[in-house]
């Protein structure tokens, strides 16, 4: 089984780091992973996305995929293209308030004020990490403990001071979700 997750937003929201964290955590839990991010020439403000593919065996999937199982939409900037990729039974997590587009996704959906939660905790750039914590809580695609474990190693050495804040952000996101909404691996498949 392969699960494709597309994280989409604008530069500066931490989308690439959240994707990297998801990939690292999945690998830590013994799965095969592939991640591919795109971002424009600008470091801040342009549209950015990252695709993470998580599976059991050797992945033949190319870095670009047509259909994804899950989406974390941090901003509406490239929503039309993103929504086209999301499978109708896939799981969608929206960044409430910041995300302003019309959403007609028929499958399971969770709207959470990730940026708002991060801003309240005085970490406005950690919105994607809040969203990732929430996504993990809603899908069990990876465990929160694994995400907290890898928070430091995914950062370049010159940014390691942000590890603690990112842990807090993921925890806040996780706590904001009451329970599983759409199981990524099914109960039996969950890696213990």
């Amino acid at each position, binding site marked *: 089984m392969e699960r494709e997750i597309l994280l989409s937003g604008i530069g500066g929201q931490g989308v690439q780091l959240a994707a*990297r964290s998801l*990939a*690292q955590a999945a*690998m830590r839990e013994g799965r*095969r*992973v*592939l*991640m*591919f*991010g*795109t*971002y*424009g*020439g600008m470091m801040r403000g342009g549209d950015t996305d990252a695709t993470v593919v998580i599976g059991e065996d050797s*992945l*033949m*999937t*190319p*870095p*670009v*995929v*047509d259909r994804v199982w899950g989406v974390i939409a941090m901003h509406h900037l490239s929503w039309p293209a993103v929504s086209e990729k999301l499978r109708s039974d896939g799981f969608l997590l929206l960044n409430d308030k910041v995300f302003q587009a019309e959403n007609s996704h028929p499958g399971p959906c969770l709207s959470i004020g990730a940026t708002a939660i991060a801003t309240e905790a005085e970490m406005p750039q950690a919105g994607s990490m809040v969203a990732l914590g929430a996504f993990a809580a809603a899908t069990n695609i990876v465990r929160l403990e694994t995400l907290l474990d890898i928070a430091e190693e995914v950062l370049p050495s010159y940014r390691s001071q942000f590890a603690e804040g990112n842990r807090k952000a993921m925890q806040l996101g996780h706590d904001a979700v009451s329970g599983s909404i759409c199981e990524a691996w099914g109960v039996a498949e969950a890696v213990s």
Partner: protein
Amino acid sequence: MSAELLEGSEALAKAMISAGCRFFAGYPMTPFTEVLEGMAEHLPEVGGTCVNAESELEAVGMAWGAAAGGARAATGSVGQGLSLMQESIAEMCFARLPLVVLNMARGQGDYFQATRGGGHGDYRTIALAPADLTEAVSLIQQAFYFADKFRNPVLFMGDYYLAHVIEAVDIGPVDFEALPDKDWLLDGSTSGSGTARIISPLMPVKRNAEVFVEYGDYLETSGDKIAAIENGMEPLFESGHCEDADYVVVSYGTPARIIRYAVDQLRSEGVRVGFFRPISLWPFPSAALTEATRTAKAVGVYELNAGQMVDDVRLSLRDKVVESIGGISFDDSGFGIAPELTPARVEARIREEMANLSNEVDA
């Protein structure tokens, strides 16, 4: 060594170091920049040197000097930067020096540059093009081996996808057959002995050598050297589903990974299509391609350019219908992200070509 989750560019850097590369020079240009960052971070850890060169001209010059000093050396850029390096790459072929040059290309417009080159004179460079990161880290080690074995620059063809894909890869050293000592390297030790060494694109020996070689005679050995590489190395390729294929798609690099995926999908639906992927662009795997397309009624070449490799495919298959089915595809980033390069669109393109094929056959 076990697998590590690495971004492509960092994996390439670590694979180079694992291959014994101890000198690297480069000038930033995305997506080559990320490889340079990796070398700047990791090369000093093993006592190597990474120089932030002031231009591509200087980067390749520094790597040339380091190679002459006997170090495994590499440089690289993007196609545009490689344009600046052409002069030195050609001359290093004549000077019989090993070098690995990475082209972290934007799109696939550099096929001619890689396989024909823009330098002067009769020279050729081996060009290796991986389709995914696992293959890339092993090919990059092979590149250093070939460079040393043939004392010739080797081009490694990557792209934005390869630089930025993140996968778990094993970058442990790969074993190759032992190579002879570099008894030609310059360290100053033979100066003043009457038998001082020279490394030059113009002449291989000093005037007082037992057999002095004139410039013209040396120049004439260039053809022998090209033949020696062609005879000394089996062209590399991958093929699949070709045994009974009506149609074979030829592609290299990252697009080939998507072609492979699309062909797998089509085969699972019973469509008689195969794929062929040259891994060494020079020497080009012509014989293997001929064999792989034996049953094919037509051959499509998918590349992200206006049609470059298609020339080599046509030269290999002179009695087959060979068509270019790719094209230039670029998004606004300018980094070579190809909007047309998705499994669904590629699959649709192959179906379209195969429909034409059966129409032609019916008619």
